[in-house]
């Protein structure tokens, strides 16, 4: 297992009226983050909020290319990214104990915080297809280049870790500075992760290590 300190490239926020960041995703242009009763889109170039959708947003956020997915209470809402309209709802696998959310390979991947699990879920029916066990509380989930990464928060410490999607074994780990929380995770498809900063109300860009 490779372990190193996370390299924080940039910090966005805090933003006016945002008490906490509960989930993060990226649509190729904007970084979206969930702040309780809103989904906000920031332009990663200037760090300003470009757009907001008024919608319950209590945990993980994901994007499938056209739709935003947002966990609210004990369900996952499918939202038209253009209009902000809710197109459908499925129950969340953790019944409200859900945390991170990611889209990959036609499935939703949902972190279940205290159960330390990641569920692969059918986005149409909400059916759990399989479950991966983690060693730590799961706070955010993302897929990039066939790698499964998730954020953790336990013992007042956070890290971003790559795990084997079959066995749950930790392959690589990036430690964030003490007291820095990861409350949502998304890759930009390149060499950056966007990490929600929990009740600090900010978003951090963290460098993804290059494969040698």
């Amino acid at each position, binding site marked *: 297992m490779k372990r190193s300190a996370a390299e924080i490239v940039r910090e966005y926020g805090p933003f006016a009226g945002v008490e*906490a960041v*509960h989930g993060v995703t990226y649509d190729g242009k904007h970084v979206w983050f969930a702040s309780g009763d809103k989904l906000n889109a920031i332009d990663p170039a200037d760090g300003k909020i470009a757009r907001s959708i008024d919608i319950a947003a209590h945990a993980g956020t994901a994007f499938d290319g056209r739709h935003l997915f947002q966990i609210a209470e004990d369900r996952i809402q499918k939202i038209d990214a253009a209009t902000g309209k809710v197109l459908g709802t499925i129950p969340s696998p953790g019944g409200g104990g*859900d*945390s991170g959310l990611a889209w990959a390979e036609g499935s939703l991947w949902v972190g279940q915080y205290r159960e330390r699990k990641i569920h692969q879920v059918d986005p149409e029916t909400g059916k759990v297809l399989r479950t991966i066990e983690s060693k730590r509380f799961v*706070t955010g989930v993302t897929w990039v280049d066939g790698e499964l990464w998730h954020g953790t928060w336990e013992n007042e410490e956070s890290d971003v870790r790559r795990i084997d999607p079959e066995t749950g074994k930790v392959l690589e780990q990036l430690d964030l500075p003490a*007291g820095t929380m990861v409350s949502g995770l998304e890759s930009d498809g390149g060499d950056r992760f966007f990490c929600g900063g929990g*009740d600090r109300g900010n978003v951090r860009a963290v460098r993804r290590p290059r494969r040698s």
Partner: protein
Amino acid sequence: MESLITAAARALEAGDPLGALNRVALRNDAPSLALRGIAMAQLGDLAKAKSLLRSAARAFGPREAVARARCVVAEAEIALVSRDLSWPVKTLAAARATLDRHGDLANAAHAGHIEARRLLLLGRVDEAEHALAELITSPLPPASQVVRELVIAGIAIRRLRTKDARAALDRAARAARLAGIPALAAEVESANLVLDTPAARLIARGEEHPLLLGQVEALGASSALVVDMFHHTVRMGGIVVSLGTRPVLFALARSLAQAWPADVSREALMAAAFRARHVDESHRARLRVEIGRLRAKLKPLAGVSATKQGFSLTPRKTRDVVVLARPVEEKHATVLALLSDGEPWSSSALALALATSARTVQRALEELARSNKVQSFGHGRARRWMTPPVPGFPTGLLLPGPFLKT
């Protein structure tokens, strides 16, 4: 973050405990137990709240030190509100240190405010002020600011600094509006009432006037000789003669002050001081002794001169003698007078000070407790009695919402 926990915590923060319960009522994981505990506390079921918070603290593992510490702080606040003043303060201090260390400054400050409120309740005003000064105050969420200003107002009221109290309550009202929690706004409102309700009665030259707290304060700065029924003292300028443990002397001083500049007959004095129905020679002898004692005590402030039919007060360096009394004469005024020093008293100490039986004091205390004029904490021999330091304050449960964010 966890979805339903976030939703429930947001509901609590917005002053909607039922909304919070709706979301976590059937869950028994640690954060749900804690949120349920706080919601129950806000709904007034303190016993249930306490047991839920205890289970939550246990359910949070040792690796979740901050969450655990928050439960301890919430339990301490419940203890404070239920006037369980024997609750271990060391546990609270340890929780505050944990929160401080992990950068949860808002909840660390909340823990400090609870400690200051407890000291204020115990009448340890200096220590309360000291505890408050130690806290890091910015930036505090509005709900915490309200609590802080209420404590500052409470200290100012206890010190009879009404201007400071009013300024603090104005700041509290502003913060309460920002917080948007109705219970907090109501708390500030009721604290404000203290300043606008007659706090005392002034008896001078046979006439009575109600006094607001601010006027009581002004009286302290005046040159009048004041017989103070609240503190069982006789004072003028900076000189204070305490008669708290000498009820007979105090009764004589009060009778003389009330009649001033006229004199008071021996019979009237004996009736007031000894509550004697039939006066005999032994009472007359005792009166002479007690007047002698009073004369010695009051020497720096006033003389006590014999007149044809009794005695009269001859104040030095002032042309004004007043009695500062409670707004309503109490049946158990003497017990209340002793308790209003803000210190916790045992009933046996009260009996000793009042020269009466422990049983009589017990009966008086129980009667006063029924009308909420006194309160007790502890059990058996350790039981102590006191008056609420300032009427109606601090009584509410002020648990803030942002308690369980992570």
